[in-house]
Structures are given as structure tokens and as C-alpha cells.
């Protein structure tokens, strides 16, 4: 399980203790991924890394296109943000699209323009506008986050630890192929390209299956998010979403149905096949919840006399599988998930 967040506030070293001279840095935290031997757990990575490339990490958008943003003062190294081995994402920090995460695409960036994967939502029409603040963040990959250890590698996916990423309609299973010295899919051959640069998106979850070799424990650190998330999810479809913050939350507090448009409810578990759903991985299986017409979260296995499940806790860093039944506007839609904590300045 993921342990509770440990938050540490840092002050600039060597500054005299006068209010006018005190500078604050974003809080830094640590989290632990733990998977008992032989079991499977779900995870997300809500802590934020720093970018490693030159040029502005924070900026203001000076122009927006269908698939790019510009910052005329950025001074980025051309093509440095768009390399597969050093993937980045942009987080919008102000404006109506605040919290939106967009992966930098493989189209080479210029000194002032970054091309983005839009998740099928045109940037210019999705609320991103000139003047919005943004930051450029280094993303995790299979290689940079796990490397060749501490997950156990193997000759194939049945013997190695697995990392599974939800690909919209099915799982893609990755493992570290020890003989071939590269990350591979379960369906790959030795000649298949290395999957080392597969991104672990910050707004998505993934699953880890620990085959053996003892319990798995991975400690990682990063900045604590200081803003909520605006997450793109498929409608209709199923999306495996990170909630974007390293703190426990209940189903009732999350109130996911209020973070999106057109959430479909159901009268009872019998009719819940037609309702939108949230699924949480509970160590061995999915627990599936729907929102009843009366406004309380229920399991699909509940009968009419079951209590409200609003107090069910989603542990810190655990992603949720969101299932939307109907098409609504017919394009991917947004879920605006606020932080469930505040950061004191």
C-alpha cells in the first residue's frame, strides 16, 4: 500500500528570519510503492519532478494553436523537450484549463514553441489561452522510474514482474526482459523495439504485479502538487485516472460525479449496467461503484438495503478506473479534481 505522504517545507538557506526576506519553496514529499510478493497493486505518481532541460520551466503562453503553445521568452533548447528518452509534459497553471496535463509530442520543439499531444481535444478550443501560466515537467518512463531494478526481470512476462498500463480498451503488459536488457511488452519478440521510453503519465494509473523475490518496496520523492487536476477522460469509454494528489480521500469527498458533466446514475444494482462507474483495485479484484439515483455511492453487488458507500476511502496515490457509458458530446471530456488539502505560504 502507499503510505501517508510525508511533507517537508523547505526554506531558502542562508536567509535572515525577516518576513520580507523569507522565500518559500514548494513542499517536497515522499511516497512508497509496496507490493507483497505474488500480488498486484494499482498506483499513480502524483509527485512532480523538475525539468532537466535548459529554458523556462515556468512561463506564460503567448500563442496557442490546435496542437501547440508558444512562449516567446522561453528560450528552450530546440528538440530537447521532445525526445523520447526525456519526455516532458506541460501543466497549465492558470486560466480556465488550469490543471490540464498535456504530454509533449515527438514533433521537435523550438526555442519558443512546444507541440503537444492533445488527447483528441483541440487546445485552442479547450480553454487554453494566451496569458495562461504553465510549467514544463519531466515525465517518468519505465526506464527512468524503474530502471532494470528493483522490479524483477525475466525472460518473459510470466516470470518477470509486470507493469500494466491501461490502453483505453485493454491492458498492455510490460516487463524487463533480462536476456535482452530492455523493457518489452508481453507480446514482443526479441527484435521488437525497446519499450524503455514508455511514459508513466502523471494523470494516469498503472498496475504492478510482483511475481516473487520477496515484497517490493519503491520509495520516490517529488514536489507536492499545488494545484488540482483537469483530467481528460474518454466518453464513452474507460479511463484509468490518477486523482492528482498524494492524500487519502473518500468516495463522498471525491464526488467524482460532480467533477464531470452528464454522470449517469442508476436506481439499483440491477440497472447499474447502464450507469457510469468508478472502479477501485482492492488488492485482488475491482470493486465497482455506481452513483444511485438517491445520491449515494453503491457497489454493483449491493442490494437495496445496503448502506451508502460514500465513506469508502481511496488511499493516497491509488488511481481509479472511470467508466462512462454514453457519448455525451462525443469527444473526450474533462474531470476537474481539486486538491483535498491546502499548502500554507
Amino acid at each position: 500500500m502507499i503510505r501517508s505522504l510525508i511533507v517537508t517545507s523547505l526554506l531558502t538557506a542562508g536567509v535572515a528570519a525577516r518576513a520580507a526576506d523569507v522565500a518559500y519553496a514548494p513542499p517536497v514529499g515522499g511516497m512508497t510503492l509496496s507490493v507483497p510478493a505474488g500480488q498486484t497493486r494499482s498506483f499513480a505518481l502524483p509527485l512532480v519532478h523538475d525539468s532537466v532541460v535548459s529554458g523556462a520551466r515556468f512561463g506564460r503562453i503567448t500563442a496557442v494553436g490546435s496542437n501547440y503553445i508558444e512562449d516567446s521568452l522561453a528560450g528552450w533548447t530546440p528538440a530537447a523537450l521532445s525526445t523520447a528518452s526525456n519526455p516532458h509534459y506541460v501543466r497549465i497553471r492558470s486560466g480556465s484549463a488550469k490543471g490540464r496535463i498535456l504530454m509533449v509530442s515527438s514533433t521537435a520543439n523550438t526555442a519558443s514553441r512546444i507541440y503537444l499531444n492533445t488527447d483528441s481535444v483541440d487546445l485552442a478550443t479547450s480553454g487554453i489561452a494566451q496569458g495562461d501560466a504553465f510549467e514544463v515537467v519531466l515525465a517518468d518512463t519505465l526506464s527512468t522510474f524503474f530502471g532494470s531494478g528493483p522490479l524483477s526481470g525475466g525472460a518473459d512476462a510470466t516470470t518477470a514482474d509486470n507493469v500494466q498500463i491501461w490502453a483505453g480498451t485493454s491492458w498492455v503488459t510490460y516487463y524487463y526482459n533480462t536476456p535482452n536488457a530492455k523493457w518489452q511488452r508481453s507480446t514482443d519478440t526479441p527484435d521488437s523495439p525497446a519499450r524503455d521510453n514508455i511514459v508513466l503519465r502523471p494523470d494516469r494509473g498503472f498496475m504492478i504485479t510482483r511475481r516473487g523475490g520477496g515484497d517490493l518496496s519503491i520509495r520516490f520523492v517529488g514536489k507536492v502538487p499545488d494545484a488540482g487536476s483537469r483530467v481528460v477522460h474518454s466518453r464513452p469509454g474507460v479511463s484509468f485516472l490518477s486523482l492528482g494528489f498524494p492524500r487519502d480521500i473518500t468516495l463522498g469527498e471525491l464526488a467524482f460525479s460532480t467533477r464531470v458533466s452528464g454522470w449517469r446514475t442508476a436506481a439499483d444494482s440491477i440497472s447499474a449496467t447502464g450507469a457510469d462507474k468508478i472502479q477501485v483495485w482492492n488488492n485482488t479484484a475491482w470493486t465497482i461503484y455506481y452513483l444511485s439515483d438517491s445520491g449515494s455511492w453503491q457497489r454493483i453487488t449491493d442490494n437495496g438495503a445496503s448502506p451508502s458507500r460514500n465513506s469508502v476511502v481511496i488511499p493516497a496515490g491509488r488511481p481509479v478506473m472511470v467508466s462512462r457509458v454514453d457519448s455525451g458530446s462525443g469527444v473526450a471530456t474533462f474531470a476537474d479534481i481539486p486538491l483535498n488539502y491546502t499548502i500554507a505560504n
Partner: protein
Amino acid sequence: MKNPIYTILAVLGIVAATATASAQTLVLEDFGDGGSTSGAVISGTSWVGQTSLTGTALSVGGTALSDSGWSAINLSLPDLSAYSYVSLSLQLSPDNAATNIFVTFDDGFDIQTVTFLASSFTTSSVTTVSIPITWSISTTTVEAWNIGGGATPPGNGSPAFRMTFDNLALNATAPIPEPSTYAALLGLVALGLVCYRRRQTKQA
């Protein structure tokens, strides 16, 4: 008919253009026509043991739910940028409850999903529905695709998925007329020739 030769030429032009368009179709899966398929049932899904290949089609029934249960992997496809439509041919079963059919393309790093509404198809016959696609993934490295209802395997809590798949293809342009239309066009050509010959005979 003033000068039927122009009519004939126009019709031949239509037929020629149509024949050319038919060459710009890439069949990804014909579900058994010719005796083989490019795909297979995905293990761990509710479709395992609930599908049957009839020789020309894939029937999904039994206790199959709306997770995605069929995929083709490790493909060597050409550059797909020339194809702008995804065409799916299927017939619904009367007891189908799934509302969506998803076709997902995979370039090895990113995925792109096309959504077909079940209501676009019928239970009475095989229907072909084509949906335009604007590629957001790399069209030169698409290596896999899958099809189904899209729910988390093994589909717990999702509707029953009951239908028979006939064909999955990519088209460069809006889909070409059905073969029956070819017959109609050729019939028109023949009629034009007959009229022309009669006119020539009368003039003589």
C-alpha cells in the same frame, strides 16, 4: 438520348473511379474469409470460450461482456496516413446490450480509439458503418489493434456483448458502393449501348 456515347463515357468514368477507390481499402480483419484471421481472443477477458469463427465471421455470444476481447498484435502494416475512414461490418444479436463498440489502434507508444455506436447496426443483417479518423498516433508504426466493448477485463458490471463481426477495414475515401451497385452501373452502360445501336440502325 441525344448522344448516348457521352452518357456511356460518363458511366464508365464513374465505374473507373469506383474501381480505383476500391484499391484504397486496407482490410485489417475479415474474420475468417479465406480460412485465417490476423487476430485472436484476448486472454483474461470475458470473451474467452465465448466466441466462434464461422468461416467468414466472428460470433461473440455466450456470457461475453463488454470488455474488449479480440486483438491483432505484432502487425506489419503500411503507412496508414492515406486512410481516413475506419469501417466496421457486423450484425447485432437480439440479446446484445452493449451500447458501444471500440476499435483501438496502437503504435507502440500511444493509442487511438474509434467509437462505433451499437445503435448504428441492426439485428437483421450485416451493416457496414464507416467513421472518419484523424490520426493522432504514428501512422507508420501501428502494430496492433483490438476491438470490443472497452470495459475493464473481465467486464464485471458491463452489459452483455452479443454480435457477429464480419469485417474491419480502413478506407482512403468514403466507402465505395456495394457490389450490387456495380451491377446497376454496368446495367446502365449496357442500356446506353443498346440505345446507341438502335439509333445507328434507324439512321442507316
